[in-house]
């Protein structure tokens, strides 16, 4: 299956001895670098979305819009409800600090500003949210229960959209790399047209001729994609080191073991794609001749 990779010295001499000349390895290296960075970003976004989804899946909040009611009592009612695993009130001072970010320092000082009361709680699988809401309303009639996933939904939607954008970009770059390989293959065929004519003249088959170009382009593609992947790995390591200083927001944007395996396989996949495209392009071009 891979015997074409192991050409004899005589076969190698047929296309001359020049190595890594022409733009193909460089183009493949740039594509490989870009593909890896984008794929890593897409995978990290997927992980972030997963972490966020898991974190808020069972998280709800009791919200009393005008701050009416006794926060400690509401918390107590929530904690005692069946299926609730934890409940934490958000103190008025913390709420005022949050409001201050949007409304300015007056929000923290003004006694006229109604501050909503908020109790965050997590539930197990057996929780009955309707019953919890009824119990809370007995204490604070305006209270309502809000799922965290509703408030963070648009963010998750954006993250998933970005994942698909990353996937699309990987496909587009792979397509661009393939187009570059087709051009390189055609260029190589033009350069070696007289050699090909002689080979055909002495009875070489298209497959024999194709093997020479396929091997050359496979080597160029492998060198280019490994070099691009190496550069991308350095950049990703620097980004990861920087991310550890970026606080909690970046905490979920990490790459798992399987992600690293996928990233490691991408240069090989790019090489395989380039080789297949080169073989197809060369065979198609040779069929134009007699």
């Amino acid at each position, binding site marked *: 299956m891979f015997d074409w990779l192991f050409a*004899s010295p*005589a*076969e190698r*001499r*047929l296309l*001359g*001895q020049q190595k890594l000349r022409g733009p193909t390895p460089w183009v493949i290296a740039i594509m490989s670098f870009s593909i890896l960075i984008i794929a890593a970003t897409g995978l990290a976004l997927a992980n972030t979305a997963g972490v966020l989804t898991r974190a808020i899946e069972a998280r709800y909040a009791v919200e009393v819009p005008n701050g009416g009611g006794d926060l400690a009592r509401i918390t107590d009612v929530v904690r005692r409800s069946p299926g609730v695993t934890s409940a934490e009130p958000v103190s008025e001072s913390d709420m005022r600090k949050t409001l201050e970010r949007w409304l300015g320092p007056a929000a923290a000082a003004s006694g006229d500003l109604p501050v909503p009361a908020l109790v965050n709680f997590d539930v197990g699988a057996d929780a009955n949210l309707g019953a919890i809401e009824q119990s809370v309303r007995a204490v604070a009639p305006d209270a309502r229960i809000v799922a965290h996933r509703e408030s963070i939904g648009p963010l998750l939607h954006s993250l998933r959209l970005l994942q698909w954008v990353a996937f699309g970009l990987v496909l587009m770059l792979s397509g661009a790399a393939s187009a570059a390989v087709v051009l390189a293959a055609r260029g190589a065929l033009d350069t070696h047209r*007289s*050699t090909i*004519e*002689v*080979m*055909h*003249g*002495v*009875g*070489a*088959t*298209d497959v*024999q001729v194709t093997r020479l170009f396929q091997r050359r382009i496979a080597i160029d593609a492998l060198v280019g994609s490994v070099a691009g992947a190496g550069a991308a790995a350095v950049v990703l390591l620097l980004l990861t080191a920087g991310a550890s200083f970026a606080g909690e927001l970046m905490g979920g944007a990490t790459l798992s073991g399987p992600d690293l395996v996928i990233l490691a396989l991408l240069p090989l996949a790019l090489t395989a794609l380039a080789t297949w495209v080169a073989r197809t392009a060369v065979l198609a071009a040779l*069929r134009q001749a*007699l």
Partner: protein
Amino acid sequence: MAEFDSVGLRYGTGAEVLRDLDFRLANGGFYFLTGPSGAGKTSLLKLLYLAQRPTRGRIKLFGEELSEAPRDALPQFRRRIGVVFQDFRLIRHLSAFDNVALPLRVAGAKDEDVEGPVREMLAWVGLADRSSARPPTLSGGEQQRVAIARAVINRPELLVADEPTGNVDADMANRLMGLFTALNRLGTTVVVATHDVGLIGATPGAQMIRIEQGTLTDPTGVLKHPPGRA
């Protein structure tokens, strides 16, 4: 060996360069193809060595109808034909040795089976000491001899040569014709396109095919119905 029936050839949408070719080449025959420049000698040779398909008519080679044969089938027939091109068509970046060895390697010969025959052939054409030289460093005559060595290394059943002695001196021309004659005696059918009437006279038993303005001149009908086996 070869049968041409009502064969015509045109390039693109141009006029026919070959018209109504009807002839047979007998197995083991020796033929000289002559005619003025532009008469269609090279085009006829291209049909013979399967570098071109006829635009009409039928060509049979080695007993097989090849005019419309699938292109995948052609390489095995090309391996049975040796070709000496007018412009040599040597691969410039390969040594004389590798150029001569090419048909053997294409046919799947192993390196150990290539060395001996190639050295022997290079010695025969007087280039034993030039085996590692590349074509650009060889004279026209030397390149011609490498091209001839490449054409005959495989002991082809059909040898087609386009002006093979055009770039060599009289002595070498005689030696090359001697090689062609020797191959012919071993059963190879030889077709040589040439302007050199001296060669024709010096090759006993050879038959002349004259082509003018794309048409074969065969007043006696001997080419259409050769005396030997077709």
